[in-house]
């Protein structure tokens, strides 16, 4: 293999698994270190740079970072990254003075954002400090989009949501509430310099089976029903409730039902328990509240009695493998009684208000054709993001779409090629403080993952908006931060200094290192000290070593960044250096040119 080019910003970025997995590339290890130091406001602001809504995401993020976390590969459970984010948000104090300033002199560009959800708000957040004017149209009476309508208050309190949205709105968004856009053509005629569509995926999927419309008052579409509950239009439900579908919306529906009168709630899943779409933690939380999850049941019919829904009939299925494909067969029928039935089987984006002859192409599924990199539609100057772009994803993806769209809009408004993206960059700084001292906590803490405390089952149902998760206690935070493996503190190797004494190889607790003759990747992977089967993780290969011409190979997979290789190296051929990925945002054209870090004078 060729020597690894560590100046490529992606190399070390990939090593920081959580940051690489995060759509918005939040610098997780650094903010966890800031929390460990009690610098909550700094941790919050670092978060805010990339993910814009740390308080919200610290509660309801989909957490792609956690399954990616290296800790999960060497220990049982990953670091509770999301819960730590919430700690930073809860304890940040007043950060108003440290938010980006908004220029009084505008740049004369007006941008329309359709929908006031997380994607549009991110666009506003990125563009307002550059002098743009942003007009945001929202059909509801309050901004927030799906975060307000579809996430129940017992998971995301209105104050938290309100605070983080207000910060952006107060930057100078011209917010047009209760104003839905009825025609794109008409909007375009109003002379905006660019349009961003962040209108979400507002249409819940329906279930066209017998009896669906015979008692419409007691059969609900999940996301609409959650919205009605959120705005107080619905405040009661029957005693027995069936939720059809087992994704995260179903989890919110079942727990909401319990808070407005239901006593017996069943979540009906078509698939076996091991294949449900809901996140594990959301399933756990629902089960803690005695929601029954019933697997392998496919709905066939709404059953009515005297014109009122009284239950639902299901096919009971069994799954088996045939020729490597999963198939199902029917085992029998089953009737389950219900007073109300909520359909939570997915949602899609819908654009009845976009004329099909104005240059915005839609594909065969009636989804707009949007460039994944630039977020631009087929009509220049019209951008999409969030669930509106590619169908339902999640908040953190919507935020990233917003950032990318903001970069594109900024370039578009200045006549630049939006296909040329501002590059990432990486900065490396040694963490060496003394002979065996580093400016990070390098020892491996064997503590197991902390469990966030919940409000007791007696208390939590008393009101609909009692937040169930209490957040980590100080003591829990103190332990959990130490579980982070500091994957951003990189093992940087200088081949010219190595005397091939093997000290690093012998001391490495996770057998990451090997000095051997170079070869092709497959061959090298087979010759390493420990199995190197995880091909998602890169190999580091050094320049040839001085004494024997062999190479130092490091399998990044299970390195715990303890720094012992560097401590045991007699010639400082290894150093532990902090890598900071410079992530470009709108206006950061120079992010790619490696500039020395700016030091602030006191």
């Amino acid at each position, binding site marked *: 293999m060729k020597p690894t080019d560590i100046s490529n910003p992606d190399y070390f970025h990939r090593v920081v698994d959580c940051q690489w997995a995060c759509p918005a590339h939040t610098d997780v290890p650094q903010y966890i270190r800031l929390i460990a130091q009690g610098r909550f406001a700094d941790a919050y602001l670092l978060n805010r740079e990339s993910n814009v809504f740390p308080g919200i995401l610290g509660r309801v993020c989909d957490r792609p970072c956690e399954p990616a976390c290296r800790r999960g590969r060497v220990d049982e459970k990953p670091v509770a990254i999301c819960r730590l984010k919430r700690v930073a948000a809860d304890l940040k104090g007043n950060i108003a003075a440290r938010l980006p300033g908004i220029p009084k002199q505008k740049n004369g560009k007006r941008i329309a954002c359709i929908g006031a959800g997380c994607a549009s708000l991110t666009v506003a957040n990125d563009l307002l400090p550059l002098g743009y004017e942003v007009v945001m149209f929202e059909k509801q009476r309050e901004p927030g989009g799906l975060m307000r309508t579809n996430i129940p208050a017992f998971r995301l309190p209105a104050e938290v949501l309100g605070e983080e949205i207000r910060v952006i709105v107060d930057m100078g968004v011209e917010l047009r509430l209760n104003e839905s856009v009825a025609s794109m053509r008409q909007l375009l005629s109003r002379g905006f310099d660019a349009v961003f569509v962040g209108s979400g995926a507002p249409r819940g999927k329906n279930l066209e089976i017998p009896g669906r419309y015979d008692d419409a008052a007691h059969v609900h579409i999940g996301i609409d029903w959650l919205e009605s509950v959120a705005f107080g239009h619905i405040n009661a439900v029957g005693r027995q409730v069936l939720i059809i579908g087992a994704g995260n919306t179903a989890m919110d529906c079942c727990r909401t039902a319990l808070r407005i009168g239901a006593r017996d709630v069943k979540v009906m899943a078509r698939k076996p328990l091991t294949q449900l779409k809901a996140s594990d933690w959301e399933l756990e939380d629902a089960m803690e509240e005695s929601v029954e999850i019933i697997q392998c049941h496919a709905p066939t019919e709404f059953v009515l009695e005297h014109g009122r829904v009284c239950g639902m009939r299901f096919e009971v299925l069994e799954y088996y493998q045939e020729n490597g494909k999963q198939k199902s067969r029917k085992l029998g029928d089953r009737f389950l009684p219900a007073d109300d039935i909520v359909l939570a089987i997915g949602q899609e984006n819908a654009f009845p208000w976009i004329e099909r002859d104005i240059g915005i192409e839609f594909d065969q599924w009636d989804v707009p054709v949007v460039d994944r990199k630039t977020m631009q539609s087929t009509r220049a100057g019209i951008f999409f993001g969030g669930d509106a772009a590619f169908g339902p994803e999640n908040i953190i993806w919507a935020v990233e779409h917003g950032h990318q769209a903001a970069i594109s809009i900024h370039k578009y408004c200045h006549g630049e090629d939006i296909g040329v993206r501002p590059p990432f960059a990486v900065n490396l700084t040694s963490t060496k403080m003394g002979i065996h001292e580093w400016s990070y906590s390098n020892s491996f803490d064997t503590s197991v993952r902390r469990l966030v405390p919940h409000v007791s089952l007696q208390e939590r149902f008393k009101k609909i908006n009692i937040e169930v998760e209490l957040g980590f206690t100080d003591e829990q935070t103190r332990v959990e931060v130490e579980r982070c493996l500091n994957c951003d503190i990189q093992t940087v190797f200088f081949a010219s200094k190595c005397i091939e004494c093997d*000290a690093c190889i*012998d001391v490495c607790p996770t057998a990451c290192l090997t000095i051997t003759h170079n070869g092709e990747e497959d061959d090298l992977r087979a010759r390493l000290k*420990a199995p190197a089967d995880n091909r998602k993780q890169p190999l580091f290969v050094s320049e040839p070593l001085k004494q024997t011409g062999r190479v130092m190979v490091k399998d990044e997979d299970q390195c715990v960044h303890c720094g012992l290789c560097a401590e*045991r190296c007699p010639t400082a051929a290894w150093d532990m250096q902090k890598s900071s990925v410079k992530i470009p945002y709108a206006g950061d054209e120079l992010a790619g040119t490696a500039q020395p870090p700016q030091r602030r004078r006191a």
Partner: protein
Amino acid sequence: MSFMQKPRVSHSQLPRNELGLTTRDYEGSMSTLCAGCGHDSITAALIQAFWELNIEPYKVAKMSGIGCSSKTPAYFLAEAHGINAVHGRMPSIATGANAADRNLYYLGVSGDGDSLSIGFGQFAHALRRNINMLYIIENNGVYGLTKGQFSASADVGSKAKKGEVNQQPPIDPVIAALTLGGSFVARSFSGDKGQLVPLIKAGIMHNGFALLDVLSPCVTFNDHEDSTKSYAHTRQFYHPAVHADFVPQKKPIRAAYDDGESMPVELHDGSTVVLRKVSKDYNPTNRARAYSYLHEHQKRGEIVTGLLYIDEDQREMHDISNTVSAALRDLPYAELCPGSAALEEIQNLYR
């Protein structure tokens, strides 16, 4: 020296041996030697060898004297027995322990000072008695623990860190062992685990005294340019004469050995050492030839390594003394101490 202990975490797919243990289970406490010390590499090779041999750590007795090398038994096989003896007196202690329990695996770890200066007599007699043990000399040519004076193995002309040139001729433990009747004589280098690990395994399984002289650079006092025991010098003049592959008894030997370049030597327990001769004219079962070969190459400044001499038929101490096969602690008290009447009887034999 690192302040922290080696993290308890290990690679999730670390292979396990027949006992279900990983190499991590064969470790000891964190080394307090200088970073980059060759001794730490030998420690790692020992861990690897014992793990590969599927030996339970508690069946091993680690013996050592005084010096940097003699500290190392603390860094591997935490669950093994061990005695840290007086300077140079480890062979006596090992002899006594071995006499009392011949069923443990004995491992002596010594240095060039411990074995070739203060303990040279002890070393010679342990060799001569052919005590069943692996005796490793971690050889770096200096007294590292007292700040780098020349040791008895320093080569003529080798420079100390501060510039003095050594004038005294060295004692070569390999040549000493050959002339003192050693039954297993080998040399290796801490920086070549591919050679070192099989030699350790063969030495452990050898029935008798296995001398393994391991060049182990002192990274603090003897790794500079004019040293003849540095990493760079050793690599430059490295001359592997015989490569030994250790084949455990269960595995059949597949390769053919009729080419005259490889030769299998069966060990006492049924395992085999396959010797691959790098030099065609070398014969590791001919003591006189081994001796002259070493001399020839030494004159050229070359460092001859490998399993240089082996004689598996030589009787070890217990065979010669005709002692019981059980460990003394396993003998019933009446047998172990037959009483005054029996003593009287024995004494009468000599009256």
